[in-house]
């Protein structure tokens, strides 16, 4: 649990993982036309880049140094070469532009598809999954990891392809011009590759330590910033500053060692390039002296050599990008392969005319299997009945709701709606049948109306009708623009009570057969409280309702009260019965069930 954060970076995806490549390509299949276009452009660019020095060479040999020809003819030849040269460079310009756009287009849409399926997949996973994962990590999968893969599509695939092609092209050309000189040059390839791979490995480790230190620094910073008031009040500024400076110094040391590493390796390719030129000058010059090579060819060789090292440099730079993209891809696919442990019923299963009969039968459950929080819970709600669950914090009331919504599956026992096991219902169907009003509410950055309606397709009139019927319109009227008031970040801030009212309205819009209310424990302003009380009275009438109750008024409205303690039902009955019994319930009431005013 504790080493969750950084262990992921240590994982290595091998470049030769064919299965991974196949999956990546699978996602790009719909865009194969784009990819083919990019490859064709690539071929053109490679051809063009190689032709340019060749044109210079023919100009030198055929015109500039051809002293045996009349000057006019030499100039005409030169002009011809120059015109062709001009045409090609303009062509390269447009081709490169198109290639970058096409690849970005493909890459972005592929990533969009991947991001979308990952998001959908995550939303379909069960709660136990989310309990074991940190949200930040999952968000990183959706954002940074996908971004990483996009890098690969746009810059890397094109560079790898272009540069590799160019490298091969240059080698072929060199061999065609002078095989012996070319063979001599070819020994630079394995040397450069070895240096590159060695460097890439060192660099990756180096970046990993830098990233992990930066992550530590940033999380310390964000924690300090959000708790700064407390730190100041407890006089911890100096100690905090020392920790930060230590982290900062650690970061500095790591960046400096990265600079040393790059400082050692970056000049090496340059050195190889100069060494190659020296080799050509010495060996090639000798060939020229022995008339086995023309001077123009020698000059061309020198120019090609410069072109030759550029792709090598590029390849070494992209090597680490590909590595990290592959690692990202592996993490993404791993997540996509995670299956929900809550088995989803495949058959839609029709449930006509829900009566609202709800039965909990011998439930036993623990978030950790050997640490049960519910022991053999059984009770029944008849259609239209209101049952209140009462008990101290940790008695298992909320867990019961979690099981009813199938956020978790019980280790033993079943929950039945109209006699049918909820495990045989589709999750979506179940969650529309059971409407829950939770203490917390997910607020969209939108108007109140949009927040109530969401995707139910309810019209404005319907919403207004529901609100009027439950008297919740009073709450809406208090807001500056009524139903059109923007809420959420940047809009009107809702109080705890108002949030619960919104949650209520949202659920009523969906008209569920069974209502579940988790009453707010936190203080609620009197105004909201009064509205809420009336809304509860109106909407619970004639509907099967289960309430985790904290307010006496709510409890007294219930037909039946179930008192829970330590995951067991300890008492049940009506308010008066239980009070007269003088047991747990009477004590709870005496201890003051609620805390709002």
């Amino acid at each position, binding site marked *: 649990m*504790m080493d969750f954060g950084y262990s992921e970076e240590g994982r290595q995806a091998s470049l030769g993982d064919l299965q991974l490549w196949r999956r990546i390509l699978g996602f790009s299949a719909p865009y194969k036309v784009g990819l083919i276009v990019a490859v064709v452009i690539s071929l053109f660019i490679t051809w063009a880049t190689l032709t340019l020095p060749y044109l210079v060479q023919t100009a030198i040999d055929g*015109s500039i*140094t051809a002293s045996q020809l009349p000057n006019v003819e030499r100039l005409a030849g*030169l002009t011809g*070469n120059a015109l062709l*040269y*001009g045409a090609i*460079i*303009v062509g*390269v310009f*447009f081709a490169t*532009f198109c290639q970058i*756009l096409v690849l970005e287009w493909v890459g972005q849409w592929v990533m969009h598809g991947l*991001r*979308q399926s990952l998001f959908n997949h995550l*939303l379909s996973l069960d709660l136990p999954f989310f309990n074991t994962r940190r*949200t930040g990590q999952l*968000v990183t999968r*959706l*954002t940074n990891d996908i971004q990483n893969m996009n890098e690969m599509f*746009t810059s890397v695939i094109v560079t790898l392809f272009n540069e590799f092609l160019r490298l091969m092209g240059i080698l072929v050309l060199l061999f065609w011009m002078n095989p012996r000189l070319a063979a001599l040059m070819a020994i630079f390839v394995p040397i450069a590759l070895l240096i590159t791979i060695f460097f890439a490995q060192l660099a990756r480790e180096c970046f990993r330590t830098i990233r992990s230190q930066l992550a530590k620094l*940033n*999380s*310390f*910073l*964000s924690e300090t910033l959000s*708790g*700064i008031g407390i730190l*100041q*009040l*407890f006089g*911890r500024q100096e*100690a905090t*500053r020392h920790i930060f400076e230590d982290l*900062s110094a650690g*970061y*500095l040391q790591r960046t*400096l060692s990265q*600079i040393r590493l790059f400082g050692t390796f970056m000049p090496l390719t*340059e*050195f190889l390039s*100069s060494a190659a*030129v020296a080799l050509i000058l*010495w060996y090639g*010059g000798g060939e020229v*002296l022995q008339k086995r090579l023309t001077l123009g060819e020698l000059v061309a060789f*020198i120019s090609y050599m410069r072109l030759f090292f550029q792709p090598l440099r590029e390849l070494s730079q992209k090597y680490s990008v590909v590595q990290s993209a592959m690692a990202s891809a592996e993490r993404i696919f791993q997540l996509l392969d995670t299956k929900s442990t809550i088995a989803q019923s495949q058959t839609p299963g029709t449930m006509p005319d829900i009566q609202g009969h709800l039965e909990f039968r011998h439930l036993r459950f623990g978030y950790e299997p050997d640490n049960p929080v519910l022991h053999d819970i059984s009770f029944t709600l008849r259609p239209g009945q209101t049952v209140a669950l009462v008990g101290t*914090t940790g008695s298992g009331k909320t867990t019961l709701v979690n099981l009813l919504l199938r956020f978790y599956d019980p280790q033993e026992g079943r929950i039945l709606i109209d006699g049918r096991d909820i495990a045989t219902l589709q999750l979506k169907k179940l*969650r529309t049948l059971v409407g829950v009003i939770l203490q*917390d509410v997910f607020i969209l950055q939108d108007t109140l109306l949009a927040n109530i309606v*969401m995707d139910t397709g309810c019209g404005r009139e319907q919403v207004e009708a529901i609100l009027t019927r439950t008297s919740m319109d009073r709450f809406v009227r208090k807001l500056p623009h009524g139903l059109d008031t923007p809420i959420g970040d940047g809009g009107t801030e809702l109080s705890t009570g108002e949030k619960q009212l919104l949650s209520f309205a949202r659920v009523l819009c969906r008209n569920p057969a069974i209502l579940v209310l988790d009453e707010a424990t*936190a*203080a609620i302003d*009197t105004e909201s409280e009064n509205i809420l009380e009336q809304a509860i009275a109106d909407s619970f009438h004639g509907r099967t309702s289960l309430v985790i109750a904290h307010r006496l008024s709510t409890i007294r409205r219930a037909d039946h009260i179930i008192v829970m303690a330590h995951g067991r039902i300890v008492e049940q009955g009506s308010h008066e019965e239980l009070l007269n019994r003088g047991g747990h319930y009477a004590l709870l*009431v*005496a*201890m*003051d069930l609620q*805390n709002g*005013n």
Partner: protein
Amino acid sequence: MKTNTSRTDSQETTRRIPFAQLRHLILPSFRHHRLRILGGLAALILVDFLQLIIPRFIKQGVDALEALTVTPSGLLRLAGIIVFIAVLVVFLRFAWRYLIIGFSRLLEQRVRNQIFTHILKLDAQFFEKRTTGDLMAHFSNDLAAVQMACGMGVVAAVDALVMSLAAIGFMIAIHPLLTLLALLPMPFLAVATRILSSKLHKRFATVQEEFSELTEFSRSNLISIGLIKAYTMEDFQAGRFDRLGKRYVRSNLRVAFIQGLITPLATLVGSTGMLMVLYFGGSLVIEKTITLGDFVAFITYLYMLIWPMMAIGWVANLVQRGLTSLDRIYGLVTSRSALPDPVTEIAPEQLAQPGFQLSHLTFGYPSSSNPVLSDLTLNLGPGMHGVTGRTGSGKSTLCRLLVRLYPLADGMLHFGGLEVNHLPLAFLRSHIGYVSQEPVLFSDTIAANIALGLPDAKREDVIKAAANAAIHEDILALKNGYDTLIGERGVKLSGGQRQRLALARALLCDRPVLIIDDGLSAVDVATEHEVFAGLKRHFQGKTVVIVSNRIKLLSMTDHIIILADGAVQSEGNHEHLLATNSLYQSMFAKQMQQDTHPAVALP
């Protein structure tokens, strides 16, 4: 996020702070490391010159080959010289990289620590205006921009300048007119890079903004996954995510459009220069004005010029971005806390009994025009004071004022008989234990969290504080007990546990004043009752201020203050208020149902 970037943009167009002031942030680093910088620059310039010399030797070789005046051993000597120079270049390159880029990291660290040290001194008012994310951006983006400008920016600027001057010089030496022709397209590249990269910067800012929207959307959805599922919002949210994602794709394509222009443009301009040299230079060779060796060397110099020309546009952007960031950092480190923090020594005997006297205290947050508290006159001396009132009546604000998170005018608040504005903050705060409404815990062990105010506290004292806050049992139930890590990467605690931990922290400090801002609202009533009943003895002679809406708790205090709309509506003890105050009566009626619990009604 939106407001954040708009602020950024507006600052970018209107920089107000002159560089003469901004440089105070970075100048000390430059001065301190001047030898390092000089050494690095010397190495850099030397590399440039050595690189320029190599083509001279190539030219020598080619010319000699053409004239057939060279022997194989002569060629070998030339090759040897080139290799020797290349080795030298390797060492010098390492030197400048380590010296100059290393310097930029040293500078970055210095500025980072400077910002952090300053931020620790700022008051709540400042943190209300700036979100954590906003401040984090200063540490990441702005520092990175400054570091880049002072590191790679300096290198690129010097390198480009030296290289272009030297290359142009050599070219002019060969043939001035040809030089002019070859350079004709270059200024165009510099201008185009400049224009395009500033456009790119703007479009990229949009991409980043949308990226963080995407991130925030994912985060908020995943963190509330239970709610999403409970309301079957999956498809609905997926649709919204899809829209955000599509917009993000489009913005990326807009960036790609510019990027797609910049890269090939450099190649095009370089090649155009080459075309000029090929045609005109070739003609000159035919006319025997220059030698073939000159021609080849010319081409080599031209290649060398492409990078400096691109760099000029790039450097200009880098410097501008660095300055903008420096400007923002400057604004941060020069922002002053609105709280006076006098540096006077206060002798313990100067302080009368620790407690607060409020006289006509009026306070409003800078963000709103209405005062939250108005004309409050109270005496909060030793004893237990309960504060209650509806949401928004000013209870929390009162607590935050007492612990000096916000500035107040003189004469409104006295502590132990002394004007608070004349007391050093650290001195005042060392007398107060505080439990906030939202408990703030840090990623550390439980013991360290409890011992926040007393880092050297003995374990048994920590345990005693925890036991008093009724959290000891809960802690023992955890696998590593008091050494369990909590927070982001550790064990998650429930709201009630977090609150009790925060209480234990305040109890451990055992300071003369304790302020609890509704700090046990998520703890069940029975536990809360138990905690306070147990502490009552402990509180003897201390000033305790407890904000709560629970009658049960309030009835245990000596003095209850009822706030309404920022003013004292009523004060007195439980019986007094029960007899006189209607709000208190209605709270009581709701919470106490006299038929069920007569014992509390008449304590």
